């Protein structure tokens, strides 16, 4: 786990310190969740790219497009439009996640400064 006092010093822990430690823990969890989400969205975008490339190469007019659990017969143009829309949505999500990740990293950096400043060696905030 991240915050653990290892030294035998007598530094007092105030409620504010505890709240900072808690907040750091929450941010760290969120950071890992965001990394997973970003990986998933990037994979989705790659798949959509591959799909639209395949679409350009195919000469069929009707493409089997997955909706839910079935593959519906959809005309090629509609499939192109749908894939473009899905790519848009995924790109927007990716942007949103990357932004949130940057903010989380910045907040964690600030908290690290505060907590290391007070506790120095008594606290460990690094990834194990």
């Amino acid at each position: 786990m991240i915050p653990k006092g290892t030294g035998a010093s007598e530094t007092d822990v105030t409620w504010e310190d505890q709240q900072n430690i808690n907040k750091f823990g929450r941010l760290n969890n969120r950071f890992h969740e965001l990394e997973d989400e970003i990986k998933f969205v990037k994979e989705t975008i790659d798949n959509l790219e591959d799909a639209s490339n395949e679409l350009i190469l195919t000469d069929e007019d009707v493409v089997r497009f997955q909706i839910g659990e079935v593959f519906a017969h959809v005309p090629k143009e509609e499939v192109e439009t749908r894939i473009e829309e899905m790519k848009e949505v995924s790109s927007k999500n990716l942007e949103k996640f990357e932004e949130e990740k940057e903010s989380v990293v910045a907040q964690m950096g600030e908290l690290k400064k505060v907590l290391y400043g007070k506790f120095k060696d008594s606290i460990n905030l690094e990834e194990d």
Partner: protein
Amino acid sequence: MAAAASSSSTESPKTTTERRGIPGAQFVEDVETYLSQTALDVNSTLAFLQERLQQYKLVEMKLLAQQRGLQAKIPDIEKCLDVVVTLQAEKGTGEAFIADFEVSEGIYSRARIEDNDSVCLWLGANVMLEYSCEEATSLLKKNSENAKASLEVLIADLQFLRDQVTITQVTIARVYNWDVHQRRIRQTATSSATKDS
């Protein structure tokens, strides 16, 4: 969502009693006062705190399992909603809707779905009910919203739980350090006493 959900304010109570059955961890201002309050010795206190930590871990496993369940359910509901919405859209065109569906692994069959106004929804427990397209859409949307709301509550519970775990871990470390400090003081006191005598 999570980054902004920190509940720190200068007026927040230092002992959050509990949340939906999860006992709150008491924040310790001063280790010595805490030990005299509980009238327990250091080892009993540490044992009590460790046990609390185990209980928290158990609850965390349970909540994580529930969260995984919900996270699997929500895309399923969305998929069903997609199909119903597509069927409704095709209704207007007058053409039949052709789809390939899986009969068994690797084997697909073609279905020709004529214009119609109703769909059957699987409700679970071997029950399937026929709904009109509009009713089906609204039911699925409602289920999806409920699932998402439950997921949010669950995530908030998990955050609360993790905070309590952190507080307990910090308290354990502080009690332990205080004990080590006390032993050191006693040792230096007895060694200087033996030197003097």
